């Protein structure tokens, strides 16, 4: 294979999610002081691409739509072994829903040029829609497979892909060009080596704006997104909140009574 493109998204570090607060007036999340990491499943997508690079020498290109301050996160992904990165940053992209995001990423992929494979994470931690990859594939007019738990390369670029479903799995025969969305079952992302970290310093991160992509602004960003956020609420919990304290015997007795009273025994 000659080129594999990996879509990666920086997300707020899940370890500090409990520090996320909502601004009660603007109804937006206050992200200040929350560090970003690569979306965890995107590391599995990258590992799959790097494994292909290991056997075929393919060029691995990272693609990310994110604010400009996402560069350190891309640098880290480069240090895993990717060859170069393209960062899409423009005010005009802000507020894009999944359809608009997929449109922007698709246009960038066309600009990067011919490819054999596009690797994505199965879902992101923050948006968690799992929609962007299928939509990129549709816009590019290529097939896609989600929930990839295993990928095997065969002769002449053919692949056998294992897709996890609720009650088992499906094995599919596929060939490039193709888009795959990876789960964490697919592989174990490699560790960073010191040499690669140094080498990554020299690898290029190109930043493209909409001047480069030239997309009609009525199709991107907040205004170009078909879905609109009408409201955002903290989840409220209307529960009885009765407390039960005492000796374990007493508690067990009262709980058993409650369970009988609810009709379960």
């Amino acid at each position: 294979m000659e080129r594999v493109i990996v879509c990666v998204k920086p997300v707020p570090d899940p370890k500090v999610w409990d520090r996320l607060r909502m601004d009660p007036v603007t109804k937006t999340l206050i992200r200040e002081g929350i560090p970003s990491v690569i979306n965890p499943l995107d590391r599995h997508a990258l590992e799959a691409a790097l494994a292909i690079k290991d056997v075929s020498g393919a060029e691995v290109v990272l693609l990310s739509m994110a604010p400009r301050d996402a560069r350190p996160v891309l640098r880290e992904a480069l240090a895993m072994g990717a060859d170069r990165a393209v960062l899409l940053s423009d005010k005009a992209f802000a507020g894009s829903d999944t359809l608009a995001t997929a449109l922007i990423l698709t246009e960038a992929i066309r600009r990067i040029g011919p490819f054999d494979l596009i690797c994505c994470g199965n879902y992101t931690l923050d948006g968690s829609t799992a929609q962007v990859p299928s939509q990129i594939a549709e816009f590019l007019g290529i097939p896609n497979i989600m929930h990839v738990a295993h990928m095997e390369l065969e002769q002449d670029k053919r692949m056998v892909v294992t897709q996890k479903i609720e009650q088992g799995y499906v094995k599919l025969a596929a060939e490039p060009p193709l888009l795959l969305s990876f789960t964490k079952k697919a592989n174990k992302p490699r560790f960073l080596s010191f040499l690669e970290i140094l080498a990554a310093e020299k690898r290029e991160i190109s930043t493209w704006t909409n001047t480069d992509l030239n997309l009609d602004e009525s199709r991107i960003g907040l205004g170009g997104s078909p879905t609109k956020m009408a409201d955002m609420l903290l989840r409220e919990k209307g529960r009885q909140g009765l407390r039960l304290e005492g000796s374990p015997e007493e508690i067990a007795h009262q709980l058993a009574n409650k369970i009988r009273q609810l009709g379960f025994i």
Partner: protein
Amino acid sequence: MGEPQIWVFIEQRRNVVHDVGLELLGKARELANTGGARVAALLLGDGVLPLADTLISFGADIVLVADHPALEPYRLLPYTQVLAEACRTRQPDIMLFGATSLGVELAPRLAARLKTGLSAHCIDLQLDADGHLLQMVPGWGGGVVATIKTPEHRPQMATVMPGVMQKPQPAPRSGQVIPLTPSEDLDLSGPRVLEVHREEPQELPLETAEVVVAGGFGVGSPEGWKLLEELARLLGGAVGATRPPVDEGWASEEQMIGQSGKTVRPRLYIGVGISGMSHHVVGMDEAEFVVAINTDPKAAIFEVADLAIVGDQREIIPLLLDELRGRVKVS
């Protein structure tokens, strides 16, 4: 043009309908009754026509059936094509999918083909005064809920988590069955299915259990976990888990409840040794009655509990098992 239509995609594998399709028919029926719309079920497969009556009894006014050998087993591209053609000719107002592994692959591809909006993993749906679909979506591990609208594009599309809508009672009703004829140039170019492997579920499926006993890291050991399984057996329920017990190997991945796992809405949920992180809570919040047992009086799980028990589960669970078996020592 006639009345607006609410479409529900019916997922079936080997001619067995996934429950989420029936749950969505129930919700669609409710929305249709307030908004004066008709409910259509979309059924694709090979030899699926006999399922149409069932779908009508669960609330469909119309069943649109594409019965074709190339539609079994499911493949993404032909399914997208059949649905897109149907949408273009019949112009539904709303189209709903279950957020299953199949639904979350198919719905976004279709939305992109139709260039319309799609919201993911909804936990509730309502109509506003103008008849727009309000799509309630959990965000940030479930700590917040966003309301999404698709004001201008049609259909308004959404995927809905399995288990969050109530499956309706089937009733004798009448409805119309309309065949959809897939076009001659059905796109069969994508990946070919080599094998569909099924692992039979061993236990009662979590999503439909009336009682869920869920364990967290505070269960502490495989031995402790066995006692939870015994408790679930006694109550005719299923065992669920948070993430740490799955990581520890006490429970299987299929048992995980929450944002990255399953959504349950049992009549009784008993959470044992669970702290109550929003990632987990988003998957159990809809339970009817919630009991939580935790040593920490400030545990967040108590905020979503009807009965908050401060205590050590290692002492309470064995005694509770004795109580329920009617084997209490008289002191």
